[in-house]
C-alpha cells in the first residue's frame, strides 16, 4: 500500500473519531438540556450545543456535519430512554443543520477573510437553523399531529430563533479561535458592531424568555418578539456590512495598489484615482500615494535606462599623468628593456 493512501486513511479515521466524539458530546448535551424546555415548547430547549454539528460541518464538510448532528440527536434520545428512532425526522433535521453549515466550503465561507465571505457564512448559519426545522415541523403538520399555529409557535419559531442566535453568537469566535476567520481590517470593522448587536439581541431575547416563564407574556408575543429581534439583527448586520465595506474599501484599494507597486507594476492605478477624489484623510493619502508611485516609476525607468547602456568615462589627463609616473620610473625603463628578452626565453623553450 502506498504512503499517500495510508495518510488518506489515517485522515479519514481521525476525522471520523472527532465527529463521533463531538456527536456523543452533542447527544449528552441534548439529553442534559432536554429538561429545560423553551416556553410553550414541549421538546425544544435552550441548546447552545447546536453549534457542535454546525462547526464540525464547517471544518470537515457536509457529511461529517450531518453524521455528527443526526447520530448525536439519536444518542440524546437513547440516553433519555426513548430509543434512537423515536423522532427520526427530527434527528434528520439535526443532521441537516451540520450538513448545511458544511456547505460553507463550497461557497467560499469556510475561511472568512472578507465581508462577503462573512455574510455568506451568516446566511448559511441562518439557513442551517431554519431549513431543517421547516422540514421536521412540516412533517409533524403533514402527519396531522399538530395545527399550523402550534407548529409555528411551539415548534419552528422557538427552535429557529434560539438556534440562530446561538450560532451567530458562537460560530464566529470559534472560527477566529481555529484561525478560519482572518481578522483583516474590514472584518475587524464589522466584528465590533456585530458582537454588540448579537449581545443586545441575545439579552433582549433571553429576557423575553425569562419573562414568559413567569407568565408575563403569551408565547405568541414571545416568539413574535423573537422574530422581530432576529429581523432587527439581520438588518443590523446587513447595514453594518455595507457601512464597513464603504469604510474599508479605500483602504483595501490602497493596499492593493501598494502590493502592485511592490511587484513592480506602476500602471493601472485607476482604483486609487477614485479614492483620491475623496475629501477626507484617505483621499489625501491616496493622492500622495499616487504622486509617490509616479515618482518611483519615473526614477526606476531612468535607472533602467542608465543600467542597460554602459557609459564609460575616462579622465584622459589623469590617465596620462598616472602612466607617466609609472613609465618614468627606473624600474619600468629597465623592465621595458628586458621585456623582449624575458618573453623570448619562454618563446624559445
Amino acid at each position, binding site marked *: 500500500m502506498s504512503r499517500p493512501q495510508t495518510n488518506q486513511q489515517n485522515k479519514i479515521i481521525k476525522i471520523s473519531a472527532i465527529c463521533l466524539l463531538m456527536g456523543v458530546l452533542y447527544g449528552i448535551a441534548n439529553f442534559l438540556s432536554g429538561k429545560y424546555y423553551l416556553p410553550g415548547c414541549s421538546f425544544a430547549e435552550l441548546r447552545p450545543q447546536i453549534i457542535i454539528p454546525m462547526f464540525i460541518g464547517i471544518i470537515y464538510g457536509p457529511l461529517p456535519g450531518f453524521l455528527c448532528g443526526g447520530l448525536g440527536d439519536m444518542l440524546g434520545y437513547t440516553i433519555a430512554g426513548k430509543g434512537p428512532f423515536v423522532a427520526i425526522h427530527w434527528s434528520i433535521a439535526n443532521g441537516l443543520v451540520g450538513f448545511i453549515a458544511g456547505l460553507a466550503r463550497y461557497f467560499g465561507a469556510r475561511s472568512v477573510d472578507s465581508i462577503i465571505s462573512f455574510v455568506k457564512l451568516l446566511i448559511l448559519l441562518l439557513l442551517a437553523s431554519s431549513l431543517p426545522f421547516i422540514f421536521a415541523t412540516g412533517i409533524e403538520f403533514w402527519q396531522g399531529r399538530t395545527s399550523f399555529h402550534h407548529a409555528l409557535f411551539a415548534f419552528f419559531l422557538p427552535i429557529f430563533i434560539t438556534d440562530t442566535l446561538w450560532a451567530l453568537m458562537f460560530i464566529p469566535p470559534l472560527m477566529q479561535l481555529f484561525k478560519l476567520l482572518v481578522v483583516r481590517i474590514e472584518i475587524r470593522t464589522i466584528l465590533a458592531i456585530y458582537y454588540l448587536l448579537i449581545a443586545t439581541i441575545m439579552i433582549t431575547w433571553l429576557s423575553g424568555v425569562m419573562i414568559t416563564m413567569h407568565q408575563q407574556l403569551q408565547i405568541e408575543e414571545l416568539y413574535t418578539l423573537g422574530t422581530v429581534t432576529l429581523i432587527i439583527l439581520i438588518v443590523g448586520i446587513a447595514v453594518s456590512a455595507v457601512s464597513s465595506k464603504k469604510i474599508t474599501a479605500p483602504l483595501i484599494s490602497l493596499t492593493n495598489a501598494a502590493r502592485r507597486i511592490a511587484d513592480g507594476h506602476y500602471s493601472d492605478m485607476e482604483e486609487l484615482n477614485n479614492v483620491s477624489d475623496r475629501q477626507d484623510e484617505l483621499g489625501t493619502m491616496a493622492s500622495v500615494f499616487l504622486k509617490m508611485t509616479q515618482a518611483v516609476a519615473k526614477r526606476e525607468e531612468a535607472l533602467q535606462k542608465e543600467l542597460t547602456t*554602459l557609459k*564609460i568615462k*575616462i579622465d584622459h589627463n589623469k590617465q596620462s599623468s598616472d602612466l607617466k609616473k609609472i*613609465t618614468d620610473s627606473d624600474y619600468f625603463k629597465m*623592465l621595458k628593456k628586458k*621585456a623582449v628578452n*624575458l*618573453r623570448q626565453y*619562454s618563446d624559445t*623553450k
Partner: protein
Amino acid sequence: MAKIISIHSFRGGTGKSNTAANLAAIYVADGYRVGVVDTDIQSPGIHVIIGLDEDDVTLTLNHYLWGECAIEEAAYDLKPALRLQNQGAFYLIPSSVNAADIARILRDGYDVSLLSDGFNEFINALNLDILIVDTHPGLNEETLLSIAISNALLVVMRPDYQDYQGTGLTIEVARELEVPQMTILINKAPETFDFAQIKKSVSITYDCPVAAVIPHSNEMMTLASQNIFALRYPDHQIVDKFKQIAKTLIS
C-alpha cells in the same frame, strides 16, 4: 613553445583568480601541461578555488623567493585531487597563506627579478606548455614584471565606474611594455546590460579586443570560489565563454 599568460585586473574582486583557475582547467582538459603561479603574495586565494588543502602545502612561492627551495619543489600536482584522468598536467605554485610569511615578505620585500627566473625554471622543470600567472591587483613591481614577461595578457574588469580608469591605465602600461597579445574580459556583468553594446563600447574605448562578457552568475556565486566552475558545470554557457577566451589567448 611555452606561453605565459598573465591574468590581471586593476581592482580586486573582479574574479581574476576564478578566471585563472577555470582557464587552467580548460587547457588541462585539452591535454596541455599547465602551471599556475599565484603571485598575489599579499592576499593569496587561488589555492582555495583549485582545491588545494592548506595542510598539504609546505613549500610555497615565498620559500622560493627567500631561496629556501627550488621553484619546482613548491609546485603541487593537482590532477589527483581534482580526479583528472586526461593527458595534460596541472601544477600550482601557491603563495603562503601563513600570516607570518605574508608579514615577512611585505616587510623585507624580495628580489622581483627572481620571479621571472622562477617562471622559466618552472616551465623547464615541469615541461609546461602554458604558464598562467594570477597577479596581485594594481600596478606594483611584480605585476609590471608579470605583464612584461607575458606572451598574452588577459585584463579582467567589471562593468563598473570604479574599474574604468584603472583598466585604461593597465592597458596603456601593457602597451608600453609591448605585450604581444592583449585582450579584455568583462566579468560579473548584470543581466540587465546589453552585452553586445558593452562589448563594443569597451573595445572602442580601450582600443583593445574584448574576448567575452560573462554575466553575473548565481551558480558561480553559490560555488563561492570553492571549486572550479568549468569542472563542476562543464556544459554551462559561462564555461563556453571561458573556452572561447582560452582559445583566443593561445591563438
